[in-house]
């Protein structure tokens, strides 16, 4: 049984078990994924994960309770019906939920795209590519491929289905120690040529990592943040545009929300699920618009609103998950072309990746983190030396506010490679950024 049929079968069972006055919803997540963990150009661990689960929620008026069940392929319909019966017993124990907000429109939507390759065969192709032309390279990373399904069904008639066949290769070519070039390639149709191109450009960059390492003193530096480094900064900021954070004053960008500070007029950021990588509906069935402006021309323009926040604060739900974080962040590109990056940087740092960011003063949006992988010292537009890793500690609003000189002209869509519990469906599209006065401390 395919995943979409599986959800339909569960819905028939769950909704058929309801009594008068009751409603129910099902939230489905499934995947069949081939993983291969790679190290030193070989395979460290490889295997297949076949998993699916469903969250069954039963409602009677404003009382409700839910259970997550892992699906076994054996009498799952019966287990879901039994869960409905168990949960019914809880409804008398729980009070009415003042923040319950249920999507009751009988939406019908289906989106199915992509075709994942055979995992073992594709992994062999990747390793052969890496080894071509000589000795086994020091390649380390993770291959992931297969189908992902997300679905929602309600007793009010909603059926929302999203399914993608995807592949991704997230890897480093390592020079030595912590000096490496990182690349991530992914897609909806297997394209070995894109892997080859990524390896070729990584190999070129690897050459410069062989130069003697330079250590810089703490201080303020002009720096080019490659898109992956910008993505790391916004991986923190993307969590700060939730309605709850705004209402409870806990958002790290509160100063920007309240207009006490501004991002640069160059900054326009959106939650853009219309790119097609993330489902156009939330886990509790609410539709998600193609794009939600979070920052427009430097000013905070909107927030991500979950169904519970919508009820609690009296604003419209826009399909955010409970944690109200952007899952398809899109930062509009600027005008600085790749060919002009180093000459415009002049003297400073070319930072490929940042790492382990966290707030050192959340109220001030001050963020600390490390440089990582292929970070270079540049003089007069020429790469001089790889850099010893450095710790920064700076305001993220300042970096993308007064400190922002230019944004790159190119912003490539990247699928999330996060695999905690399950393969993620998020994405980012961000350009690089040229910043002034980036503060390094250690």
């Amino acid at each position: 049984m395919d995943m979409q049929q599986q959800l339909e079968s569960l819905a028939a069972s769950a909704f058929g078990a309801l009594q008068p006055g009751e409603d129910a919803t099902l939230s489905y997540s499934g995947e069949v994924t081939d993983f291969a963990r790679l190290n030193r150009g070989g395979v460290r661990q490889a295997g297949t994960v076949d998993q699916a689960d469903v969250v069954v929620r039963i409602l009677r008026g404003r009382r409700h309770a839910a259970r997550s069940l892992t699906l076994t392929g054996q009498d799952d319909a019966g287990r879901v019906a039994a869960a409905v019966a168990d949960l019914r017993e809880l409804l008398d124990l729980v009070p009415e939920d003042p923040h319950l907000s249920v999507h009751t429109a009988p939406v019908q939507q289906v989106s199915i795209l992509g075709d994942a390759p055979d995992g073992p065969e594709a992994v062999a192709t990747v390793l052969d590519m890496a080894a071509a032309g000589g000795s086994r390279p020091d390649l380390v990373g993770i291959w992931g491929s297969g189908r992902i399904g997300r679905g929602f069904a309600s007793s009010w008639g909603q059926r929302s289905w999203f399914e993608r066949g995807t592949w991704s290769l997230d890897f480093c070519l390592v020079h030595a120690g912590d000096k490496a070039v990182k690349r991530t390639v992914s897609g909806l149709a297997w394209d070995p040529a894109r892997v080859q191109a990524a390896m070729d450009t990584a190999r070129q960059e690897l050459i410069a990592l062989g130069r003697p390492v330079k250590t810089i003193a703490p201080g303020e530096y002009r720096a080019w943040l490659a898109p992956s480094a910008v993505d790391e900064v916004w991986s923190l900021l993307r969590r700060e545009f939730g309605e709850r954070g705004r209402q409870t004053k806990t958002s790290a960008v509160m100063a920007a929300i309240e207009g006490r500070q501004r991002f640069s007029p160059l900054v326009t950021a959106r939650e853009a699920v219309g790119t097609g990588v993330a489902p156009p509906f939330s886990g509790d069935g609410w539709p998600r618009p193609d794009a939600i402006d979070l920052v427009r021309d430097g000013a905070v323009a909107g927030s991500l609103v979950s169904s519970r926040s919508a009820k609690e604060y009296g604003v419209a739900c826009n399909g955010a998950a409970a944690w109200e974080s952007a899952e398809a962040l899109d930062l509009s590109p600027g005008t600085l072309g790749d060919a002009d990056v180093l000459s415009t940087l002049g003297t400073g740092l070319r930072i490929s990746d940042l790492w382990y960011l966290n707030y050192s003063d959340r109220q001030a949006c001050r963020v600390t983190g490390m440089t990582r992988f292929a970070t270079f010292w540049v003089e007069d537009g020429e790469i001089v030396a790889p850099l010893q890793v450095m710790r920064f500690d700076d305001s993220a609003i300042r970096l993308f506010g007064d400190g922002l000189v230019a944004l790159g002209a190119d912003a490539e869509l990247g699928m999330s490679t996060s695999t905690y519990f399950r393969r993620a469906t998020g994405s980012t599209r961000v350009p690089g950024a040229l910043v002034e006065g980036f503060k390094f401390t250690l």
Partner: protein
Amino acid sequence: MTDAVVRRFRDALPADLDFCSLRLVSTRAESLSIRKGVLQPLHDAEDLGAMVTVRQGRGLGYAATADLSAAGLAGAIQRAREWAERTAAHSVFDYSRIAMPEPTGSWQSPVVQPWAGESLAQKLARVQAAAASLPEDDRLVEWEVALERTRVETRLVTSGGGDVTQVFDMVAPDATVVAHADGRTHTRSLGLRGHSRQGGLEIADEVDFTGLPGRLAADAMTLLSAPDCPSGTMDVLLAPDQMMLQIHESIGHPLELDRILGDERNYAGTSFVTLDMFGTYQYGSDLLNVSFDPGVPGELAGYAWDDDGTPAERQMLIRAGILERGLGGVVSQARAGVPGVSCTRAASWNRPPIDRMANLNVEPGDSSLDDLVARVERGVLMRTNTSWSIDDSRNKFQFGCEWGQLIEDGQLKGVVRNPNYRGVSATFWRNLVGVGDRSTFEVWGTPFCGKGEPNQLARVGHAAPFCLFAGVDVFGGA
């Protein structure tokens, strides 16, 4: 039920497999939570699945499935075998060199008051009583009080006759309180769900759950009017709940053999520790003694066998400051050629085991808390982690805490907000100048250690006394 699954697994095993294991994992989880006076939606979870691991020739493969029927298990064995055979030529290690353990036995967490011994209404009453300890105050803009329970049952069966059952009962009382006034916001919490432990409802009593939110609220409101933490080089006295993070990031992760072997370089990172350091490297001052101890009662990551089936036993990793042993299981030990510990663990049935730190503790010294404070001319006592960042070699770190208290001329003084400090692992531990005695020793733990590709969260335990460090770079906010 698991007996039937095991019979189906054994019946499905082909005779020509070199080695095959089945790791069944069943998880039940519940969370009872009140946020700002509103009971959060009741939600429990039932999860059961299995990972099949096959070693065939040089290769190793796995297949994870929740289909525990005869056909489902046979399919998983076939898929794992296929991976082992098709990647053997590319394998980074010749897995045929390892004799995988074939253990037998059973183990379970010590529990005094079983979770099931109280009704749902009784447990909800516990959470409501804890929430009632919060004062009515407009400055409390956000709060949540929770009682969480997880029960994990694992059964590891091997083709050579191994059969081990372990049952883990865990409870985590938790609370977070946010106060806001005059443009300032401060949070007090248990930091990374730090009271997560093995056991039953007695854990809630041990941490005085009923009064906990009220105490945190008082702290948060005190911070609103506290001055910023001073900057400069000074002594730092770390409470056990911050030692949890300090041990975890700058001892635990650097000592993981899979990081040293390079497996994590694309994600969690490498290590400044190299294999030649074991046995000779001066990791810290001679006051530093670090144990790997899966046997501490109630500590979150206790067990009797790891997920490869290696028997767990206490080992000293650092003794009198000298690095003796790394954190690596049977596979990593064979790859690295150095001694390790029984620490290969998986997040669940859907992830393969990797090297994990489990319970990693700093052993008590001989100073009382008063003694430690009395030795400080100028410094800051810090509690409860709120910010953590460290480089991918686990060397340059910067950590922040929710709560700071000045120490001047051997006396505890006023509260300070936004206490932060930074340092370098390779030198920080050598500046350990005082270690608290058993009276200052506390057991902490967190379920949020992220690592691995594919990504995995692991439960870890860290117990420690108060520890005093000299000459630390300290600073405040903004």
